[in-house]
């Protein structure tokens, strides 16, 4: 059974003239990390909310089509019923704190308490997840004394502790520095390796190119591309949609007519692939003209 099945999803916010999402159809197999990219207003956040079952439940508006997560139709289940199966992490770390708990440890327990997990099971789960996100030493600290990066890792821990089958992340590193982003993506990748299905909406294409198994590109609420990172990130459609290309891809494309990029290699979407391609081109040039 697919972890996520979206079929002909069209959604319009109350009072809006144009739909935020239009005719979206895709499936995701369990244990994959799917990157969702798009310019501002492309529909990334709306898609995340729909997958989390919060659209239309909390936003109302008009929705056509179906969204099934873990086999559950999100329109037939309340967010409360879907909690624990679907996790959602948003971009602002501070606003995701419950405001109900005094320590990092207690904050992590909040979701477990809501889902009725027996008290005896909580410590092991909390300690494991705090270890995973690197906050084990800060368990007794107030969540409000943490840095932005630590708060975002706490937001992740608070969701991961519920062991959701599907984890949805809406630009989780927007407010973080590169080091904080790196830490968050490492945790996300570990969750995927542990079998969690992850949907990651993100502005920073480098991260998606590096970590995603598959990429969905949105423009005007529609899916314009859906494929492997190297296919999507070298497509001209991405430029037309205002999303742009990665710098390493642009460099290789500009180097290609000059013979500085091997014609046999696809345009790179990671630094490693770019380095390999430019090295190959350099070796070839050296073989042709040993003086260079």
């Amino acid at each position, binding site marked *: 059974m697919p972890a996520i099945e979206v079929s002909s999803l069209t959604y319009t916010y109350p009072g809006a003239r144009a739909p935020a999402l239009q005719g979206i159809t895709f499936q995701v197999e369990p244990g994959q990390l799917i990157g969702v990219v798009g310019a501002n207003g492309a529909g990334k956040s709306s898609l995340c909310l729909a997958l989390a079952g919060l659209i239309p439940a909390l936003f109302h508006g008009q929705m056509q089509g179906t969204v099934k997560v873990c086999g559950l139709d999100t329109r037939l289940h309340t967010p*409360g*019923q879907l909690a624990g199966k679907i996790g959602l992490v*948003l971009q602002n770390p501070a606003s995701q704190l419950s*405001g*109900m708990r005094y320590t990092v440890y*207690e904050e992590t327990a909040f979701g477990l*308490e*809501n889902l009725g997990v027996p008290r005896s099971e909580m410590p092991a789960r909390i300690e494991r997840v705090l270890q995973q996100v690197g906050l084990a030493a800060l368990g007794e600290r*107030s969540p409000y004394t943490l840095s932005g990066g630590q708060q975002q890792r706490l937001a992740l821990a608070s969701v991961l502790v519920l062991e959701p089958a599907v984890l949805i992340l809406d630009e989780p590193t927007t407010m973080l520095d590169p080091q904080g982003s790196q830490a968050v993506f490492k945790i996300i990748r570990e969750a995927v390796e542990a079998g969690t299905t992850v949907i990651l909406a993100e502005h920073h294409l480098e991260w998606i190119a590096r970590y995603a198994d598959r990429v969905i590109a949105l423009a005007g609420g529609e899916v314009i591309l859906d494929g492997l990172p190297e296919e999507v990130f070298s497509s001209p459609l991405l430029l037309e949609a205002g999303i742009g290309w990665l710098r390493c891809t642009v460099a290789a494309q500009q180097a290609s007519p000059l013979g500085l990029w091997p014609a046999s290699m696809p345009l790179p979407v990671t630094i490693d692939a770019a380095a390999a391609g430019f090295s190959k081109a350099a070796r070839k040039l050296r073989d042709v003209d040993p003086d260079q």
Partner: protein
Amino acid sequence: MSTHFSLYQPGSSYLHRLHPLTKLTFSLAAAVVVFGGPGGWLAALFPGLLAMLLLWRAGLAWRAALTIFRLLALLTVVLFLVHGFLNPHNKSILLSLGPFGLGQEGLAYAALVALRLAATLAASLLLTVSTQPAHLVQALAEAGLPYGLAYLLGSPLLLLPQIAGRVRSIQAAQQARGLKTEGSLLQRARALFPLAAPLIFSTLVDVEERSLALEVRGFSAPNPKTSLNELVDSPAQRTARWIMILLAGLLLAVELSWRVYASH
């Protein structure tokens, strides 16, 4: 830690160990007796002294006294000035300042009001300095209050540090754009408007995001909730709560009956 909630003082005193509902009942019963009990001065003095004594035994009296002073000092001065000079029941003038006379009756009334406020504050501090807001919310929910309502009651206090942080950020941003937040009272009042609008809008956005985050963490999940911390209650505390409720009710009834009798 004051970073989370400014009044709560972490500790393990006997007050910290009491069930939140026992402390809440004391605070509410004290307020009823202070404002509605018989005996005027005594009704205000006794609950206030009792609260301070209980706080002292828990090592929290200085903290509470300082808080009471900070909150009431200015108000008390205003009360004494207003009632001392302007109370219509002033008959015994102690001091004349031009057309104004400082009346003994007004001063006595101001002292009574100040004492009542201080006593009520002391009783409520007994709860707030020794109880984590989250535990109070949990206790209320366990007592049968709908969870959403308990959260609504507790969250304004729980989210204070975040709102304070936001005020500081907005203030710094506006100052960087040339807004003067120092100076005369009028200047400060003017500076409030550019602060208020972004604060309100960003708080509203925050509310939406927080509600989404709470939902996905099972806030409205249909199952019975559990809790990491067990709030220890006892038959003795339950009995004490009933005694406090009955005593406050009885004293209120005595005072009301006396007033009805006296009015006839």
